[in-house]
């Protein structure tokens, strides 16, 4: 049926992704958001879907060390660049500190937003070792938490910044 015709209809080669230091060749349309390639094609489900329009931060990953919303970043834009997801953020010094602070303070509730929160907080700490309340607001306001873990997120970022 039409499926065969659709596959490869654009005549493109697969995209080469480097995620958490591993290479993947993925055969999808270039405009498919990185989020779905990570979750469905590669099987790294730690990165979450919340809104699809860059309003909630649940899908935050690092590309070239910078936080991006993978729900609006196309796979073609992410190809050939180092991508780091929640599954490997603990390998970075800031990621490790943030995760430990999250455990010390028991930030999580349902936990669904927390991959994105941690990816944003790690990027914040990497850029700013001693963030003020305003700095925290400026960066973390992009990440929604419906369980209302905001007070503990603030406290945990401050704790991580001390360590």
């Amino acid at each position: 049926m039409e499926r065969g015709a659709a596959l490869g209809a654009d005549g493109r080669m697969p995209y080469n992704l480097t995620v958490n230091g591993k290479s993947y060749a993925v055969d999808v349309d270039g405009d498919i958001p990185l989020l779905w390639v990570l979750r469905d094609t590669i099987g790294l489900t730690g990165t979450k879907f919340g809104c699809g329009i860059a309003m909630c931060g649940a899908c935050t990953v690092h590309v070239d060390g910078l936080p991006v919303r993978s729900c609006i970043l196309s796979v073609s834009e992410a190809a050939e660049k180092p991508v780091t997801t929640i599954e490997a953020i603990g390998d970075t010094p800031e990621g490790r500190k943030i995760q430990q602070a999250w455990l010390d303070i028991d930030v999580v509730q349902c936990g669904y937003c927390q991959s994105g929160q941690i990816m944003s907080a790690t990027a914040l700490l990497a850029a700013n070792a001693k963030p003020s309340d305003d700095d925290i607001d400026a960066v973390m306001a992009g990440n929604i938490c419906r369980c209302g873990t905001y007070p503990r997120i603030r406290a945990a970022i401050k704790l991580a910044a001390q360590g």
Partner: protein
Amino acid sequence: MSIFDRANLAVSRRQLLIGASLTGAGLVIGFKPHAVAAASEPFAPNAFIRIPQEGKITFVMPSVEMGQGIYTAVAMMLAEELEVGLDQVTLEHAPADPKQYANPLLGDQITGGSLAIRGIYEQMRKAGATARIMLIAAAAREWGVSPDACKAEAGHVVETGGSRRAAYGSLITAAASEVVPQDVPLKPASSYRVIGKPAHRLDSPEKVNGTAKFGIDARPDGVSYAAIAICPHFNGKLRAVDEAPAMAVKGVTQVVRIEEAVAVVADNTGAARKGLAALSIDWDPGPSASVSQSELERQMDAAIDGKALPHVNEGDVARAEAEHGPVHEFVYRMPILTHSAMEPMNCTVHVRPDGCEVWVGTQIMSRARQAAADVTGLPLEKVVVHNHLLGGGFGRRLDVDGIILSTKIAKQVSGPVKVTWSREEDIRHDCYRYLNYSKVTATLGPDGLPVSWRHRVIGPSVMARWLPAFTKDGVDLDQMGGAESPYAIPNRQTDFARHEAPDGMLTGNWRGVGATRNVPPVECGIDELAELAGIDPLDYRRRLLQHKPRLLGALELAAEKAGWSSPLEKGKGRGIAVAEDFGSFAAMIAEVSIGADGRFKTDRIVCAVDCGQVINPDTVEAQIQSGVVYGLSAALYGRITVENGAVVEGNFDDAPVLRINETPPIEVHIVPSAEAPGGIGEVGTPGVAPALLNAIFMATGKRLRTLPIDQTDLRRV
């Protein structure tokens, strides 16, 4: 290392199913011995505990974890009586099996209504104690001593005053042949070692490293991925769709049509979404096509003075009004709300000729299973539901509409299919908290205190559909919960003017349920009366709450911690609200300031709560903060509107929610209590809006009676 050991999970389900088939209704006893490995079969004195020869003890969780910390709390209850440390256990989701895992208070496998802890506090401790007694009996028999000469500690039975000591794992075979004791004695709270002490959440590690598995993360072998468009109009239907544009998208394999929706199936969700976006779908908007927000609000307004069914009737309100007059009347209007859990609705289903499997995060396991059985026509026992962590519940996952839709779609797909709703579908097809209005009428006595109180509640009856047992003579008991107020008013009347949402617009349970509807009018109403009487709002409530020591205790503590009597700068205000919900008692004080532009800022929220025996104080703090943020979000932003028989808003851009930069410091203070544990997931929410409205009044002199708070102009009048 994961607390949800997946290898164990498969084994346990089989064992539990065997166990269930052997036992009728009522208490569950052990499991059928494993045919091949009888010697290493874990000791399972009940459906909640499995003790293996070596390694961690497994606790099976009868309630679902949606953030409220119930897994940790249940583990604490079991560990308390089993005499093990929390580091010695691993947790597992219970399968759908109401015979074994029903909440004793609800009679079904439901996690909602803050009943998790309340329903199972005794049940879990008994389960732990039963296992402990059997292990002690086994050791005593082996050692030839009386069980009284032995005690349990840290996963061992030890001989008191002797030197013998045996790990639980070494006793499992012997313990399995001990008689299961009935009526086991439970520890007094004074000797609790685990309960009441702060404990780290057991689900934190998985949730900070991305390995926690929510329903949306299920990836059974051969799964395909679907995006769904549900007819945007209430009760509307699919007329026609040309599938070609979707089929032309790389990775798309199928377009599925069902009566009320279209789904595009692909090898990844991104391709499915792209395919769906390429379709022009012709919807039949159906009979509700002309429904508009202004019309819905007009109908609600008309219902305020329409017919109503009586509920509470104490004293003689009419006489008190005639005697004391004048009658003060206030009308409060509350909007349509969504749940907007962070994890959008999703469900993975595999329908085969001989059975059906469902992967989902649900608050209502048994109905989830029944729904899949109904749609497929398979017998219930052929349906397996794999429950997952929930990325937020808030009442949304107490309905199974998403499971029904996914199963209908899966019937047309070969292999398992995961249907993930977009945020837009999630917001436009919620089980909404519908418009809810209240008319409060009161008369004051010569001392300024109310002598009469009428409260008419106008809104839908969710319980008529969702839990008919919770209605009486046409009155929705949840809807009316707390409408009479907790205050000592001699003459009180409440009535229910049932007014449903338009056909096809689903209404459901929303965090805090009845109290979120009735606490705002009650707490704003009482504030208005205090103002009329010229009495300080704290003092007014104090005088009316002398018969409610627990609520009063929370009020006093909140007032003290908030510094109620300390002076405030100009442009600032404080407001109080008290709430009684699910066996817990909370008092909240909000402090706001109004900027020169007339916009307000919440400076601080202080909450005191008496929730009876605390299981994990750290969770109480987290849950109250959570409830407050949820309430604050609704008070500031919560408002869904309807046009052309469809919900207008669709995502966090036009249906915003609270973010960290708008979240004030939230202080939580616990009133020490030895009473039975109350629910804490919901009691933090209902008081937020009225506390804010009352604070805004103090700061500006303006009484706002409509939610969400209209911030456009709050300059002092």
